[in-house]
């Protein structure tokens, strides 16, 4: 019993934005440095390993593409946890976290789509295939953009935008498995596999090693960007509060004079 209560106390300490900012200021150079080192190592491995005997050099796209696709899904999970934090525990930083994660998720999804497209052109002979996986990632991208649009539309009231957005995030999170399943159903009905897929053979350790390093690097990269975006969001909100106070003070002086 003592372990969880301690954890909760520690976690609730983070609810204080000032304490969170101090922690971020302490942590982010380390996270950024580690990310850089991992990226250097991972990119070195990516280019030092052999090319595939069928795909040649283009297989190296995988080292960017797969981690980005993985993060596009992890980011939505982070947002769903944050949404729960907003609605259930009313954690003051949870809405900041969800808001900061949405553009990052959209970026990683876009990277996954673009690199997949670039990979598809030499391998499949086309930029885009209405394949089940591509389609569901594209739908995920649309959902990210919708969330960003919602946040922007309610920019003057960030707390309410966060609460309402949290509901939407959770509805989307429940729906993602259904969308994935239905898209797979749709694909098998409309379009028999016309494209030779890569996922037949199990992946060789030669490719797995750089992929894993790149995946860890991408994950760390995401968290670095995420805490920095959260810091910026907190500072932005403080500035807007200060501005409002300043405007009110000026108005009061004007009425006194």
């Amino acid at each position: 019993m003592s372990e969880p209560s301690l954890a909760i106390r520690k976690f609730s300490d983070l609810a204080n934005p000032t304490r969170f900012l101090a922690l971020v200021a302490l942590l982010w150079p380390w996270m950024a440095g580690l990310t850089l080192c991992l990226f250097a190592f991972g990119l070195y491995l990516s280019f030092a390993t052999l090319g595939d005997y069928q795909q040649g050099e283009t297989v190296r796209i995988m080292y960017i593409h797969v981690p980005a696709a993985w993060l596009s899904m992890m980011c939505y999970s982070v947002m769903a946890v944050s949404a729960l934090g907003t609605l259930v525990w009313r954690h003051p930083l949870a809405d900041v976290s969800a808001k900061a994660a949405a553009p990052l998720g959209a970026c990683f999804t876009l990277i996954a789509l673009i690199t997949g497209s670039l990979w598809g052109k030499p391998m499949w002979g086309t930029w885009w295939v209405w394949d089940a996986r591509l389609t569901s990632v594209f739908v995920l991208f649309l959902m990210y953009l919708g969330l960003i649009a919602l946040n922007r539309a309610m920019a003057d009231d960030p707390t309410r935008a966060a609460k309402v957005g949290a509901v939407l995030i959770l509805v989307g999170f429940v729906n993602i498995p259904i969308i994935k399943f239905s898209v797979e159903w749709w694909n098998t009905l409309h379009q028999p596999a016309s494209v030779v897929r890569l996922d037949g053979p199990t992946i060789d350790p030669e490719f797995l090693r750089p992929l894993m390093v790149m995946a860890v690097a991408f994950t760390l990269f995401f968290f670095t960007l995420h805490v920095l975006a959260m810091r910026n969001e907190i500072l932005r909100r403080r500035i807007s509060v200060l501005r409002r106070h300043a405007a009110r003070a000026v108005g009061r002086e004007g009425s006194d004079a």
Partner: protein
Amino acid sequence: MIPLLLRDIRLSVRAGGGALIGVLFFMTVVAVIPFGVGPDLNLLSRIGPAILWIGALLAALLGLDRLFQAEREDGSLDLLLMQETPLVLTVLVKCLAHWIATGLPLVIAAPLLGLFMNMDEVAIGATTLTLLAGTPAITFIGAAGAAIAVALPRGGLLVSILVLPLAIPVLIFGVSAVHAAIEDPAPFLPPFLILVAINLFFAVIGPVAAAAALRLSSD
């Protein structure tokens, strides 16, 4: 609950003919398609079910932003929030009323538009049946979007953007059930039953999410 249902239906039929505008939009969308793809009857009969479904989906989305907006503007939304009946139930009834006023006319208009698309009897029947089973799901999940966007001054377009990705499964299973009915080898029931299941599932999460969003945006 019955008075609320009747009131909502009456309001949406009376006020500006919102229900009829949905059907009109549906007909216009379907009528525009042949100008885009050409008057080839074979092609039209092949893509007809999909056209009807997309038209119905867009027409169902069109009126969604008014689901809670009018109540918010005249203040009766606060009364609904303060009622002793659970808000989820109120939202469910409002969804039903909205569907009867805007979704059901689409279903009724579908056979006529199917004739325009040169579809045969089986295809028309299957399309009408799947629309009957599928359009409530769009209304339910759309209610969540409408509740989320209710506080926005120009929420209409945003509701469509938020709801359309979530409505993709409904479209997929609706159209694939129709295709299964037309083409013999594929069985009709599995996709149709999944469509019904999605409908029931959305009937739960849609009102729950909409009620939560309404409460959160009201304070």
